[in-house]
């Protein structure tokens, strides 16, 4: 298939992507299109290829075949993780990963745009405007009163927020969020869903999640993955009625 024209309103275009590990097809002719400002929830049983898909988009893995196009016809398969991050794709890992021996403020400072080169970093000075931006995000993730605490002192759920904050402060066009509600209390889950909904629009968001209540709270289009390709797509209620989906996943 020839590269389709990417519409101006498309932020991510995944087309016919396959990736095998020792004969196991983790991704099998996967296609997915995401519009600017859209939120998409991705569900699927273990081994459906959700994390592999994230790895391919963020440059951790190269696909065996297929294309991954970002924004203005940028071929993501040609870049590495750091370059893709700087192109405007932020990724939150499944296991919350923050820098434990830096303060929250410093964690966010690190994620702030600019100063990515070795010598730029050495001579980097934080501007007042950037400081304000960090404070803004600290408010947004509700951790402003802990700005000088170390990342390692946060609870599991708070680490998830800080990590989301680290993505936000970069102001990426696209956020990939892997299981943000894992290990969270009910109220934390609710707050997280609110936070993600709040940032959608200004950013495009892809959320991978297992927790159905959380998906319901996100109230958005759902893509069901199964054995490395798209099984169904639509509103959650709609997808839940799909007999194939029930068979492989929900109905078990």
């Amino acid at each position: 298939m020839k590269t389709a024209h990417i519409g101006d309103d498309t932020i991510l275009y995944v087309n016919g992507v396959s990736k095998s590990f020792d004969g196991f097809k983790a991704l099998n002719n996967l296609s997915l299109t995401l519009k600017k400002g859209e939120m998409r929830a991705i569900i699927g049983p273990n081994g459906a290829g959700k994390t592999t898909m994230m790895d391919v988009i963020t440059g951790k893995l190269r696909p065996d075949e297929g294309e991954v196009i970002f924004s203005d016809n940028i071929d993501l398969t040609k870049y590495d993780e750091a370059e893709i991050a700087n192109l405007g794709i932020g990724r939150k890992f499944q296991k919350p990963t923050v820098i434990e021996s830096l303060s929250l403020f410093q964690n966010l400072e690190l994620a702030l745009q600019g100063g990515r080169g070795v010598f730029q970093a050495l001579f980097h000075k934080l501007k007042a405007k950037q400081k304000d931006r960090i404070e803004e995000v600290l408010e947004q993730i509700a951790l402003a009163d802990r700005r000088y605490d170390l990342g390692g002192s946060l609870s599991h759920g708070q680490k998830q927020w800080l990590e989301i904050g680290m993505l936000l402060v970069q102001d990426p066009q696209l956020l990939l969020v892997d299981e943000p509600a894992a290990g969270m209390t009910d109220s934390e889950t609710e707050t997280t869903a609110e936070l993600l909904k709040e940032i959608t629009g200004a950013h495009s968001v892809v959320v991978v999640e297992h927790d159905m209540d959380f998906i319901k709270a996100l109230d958005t289009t759902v893509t069901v993955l199964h054995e490395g390709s798209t099984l169904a797509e639509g509103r959650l209620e709609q997808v839940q009625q799909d007999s194939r989906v029930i068979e492989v996943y929900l109905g078990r």
Partner: protein
Amino acid sequence: MTTNKTSSRSLLAGDVGGKRLLIILLLGSVIFPAFNLMLPESSFFHISTYTLTLVGKYLCLALLALSVDLIWGYCGILSLGHGAFFGLGGYAMGMYLMRQIGDRGVYGNAELPDFMVFLDWHELPWFWLGFDNFGFAMIMVVLVPGVLAFVFGWLAFRSRVTGVYFSIITQALTYALLLAFFRNDMGFGGNNGLTDFKEILGFNLQSDVTRSVLFSCSALALIFCYLLCRWIVDSKLGRVLIGIRDAESRTRFTGYKVEYFKLFVFVLSAVIAGVAGALYVPQVGIINPGEFGPLNSIEIVVWVAIGGRGTLYGAVIGALLVNYAKTYFTGAMPEVWLFMLGGLFVVSTIYLPKGVVGLFQNLQARKENSKIGTITGVGT
């Protein structure tokens, strides 16, 4: 605890331990030579040339420990081969000192060092050219370890070799150099290495004045490199390094080319180790392949661990303490020293994860807490 208030006021504003250490070093760099040169030997305060040289040697090893703490303490790169860079810096200095001997060697050959005459060589090998010049030799002190670290680091970090795998190949690196330098036809004096030095820049190496100057140079080099390292770890670059140490993939996915940061700090660290080696050799009077021994490199890590990793001044204190203990115990009861070193390492890993420095910080924190407790009346 680290705060993010403007740290531009002073480089050592938040580094009390470092400040104290540097003041002591600065005073020492003046007092030690002065007490050696100006006081009569009968005086109680006289510092013997032996002690002066010994402490000078410790300072070089402290500089080496500092270089290891920069990469291990702040970037999580555990190099078990830093002796290689130290040794190469030492050899570069040794080659200059060999050329200074001129025709005063045992064979009286003005063109060739003794060991080459002994091997029946007739011409100076090409890689010895230029080493009669002090400036050239000093460039090599920096360049040789730096280039080796660059090539080695480039290959390792680009292939994302990390953790224990990296440590193992650094051991292989230093062991390979050990074997290479042992060979006579390498042209570096083989087993015996380079020794029997006479002069540096025309000054007699045995004289007290030369020894004193070398001592002061070692102290000043340590102070300078300490400030350089402190500046780096306090900059945003330093926080990127900590990010790599704590969460490498987070840092990578945040948009930092982790391999470049590692390469920068690894090369810088190798250069500092090379400088330490170059200052060490004229004070001990010999450099031989033993410096490349894998155990030597492991010992450096032990100094840093015992002193307190990731503090910079902890590494310096650890190197000074352990090497003093080594001198004392290898003299007093040589057979127990290795057991003690091993024991120290085990004890510090289990009971003092932050080293000697961390122990003092804890004691101080406890004292301050109890003070607050008595004031507010809620003491335990």
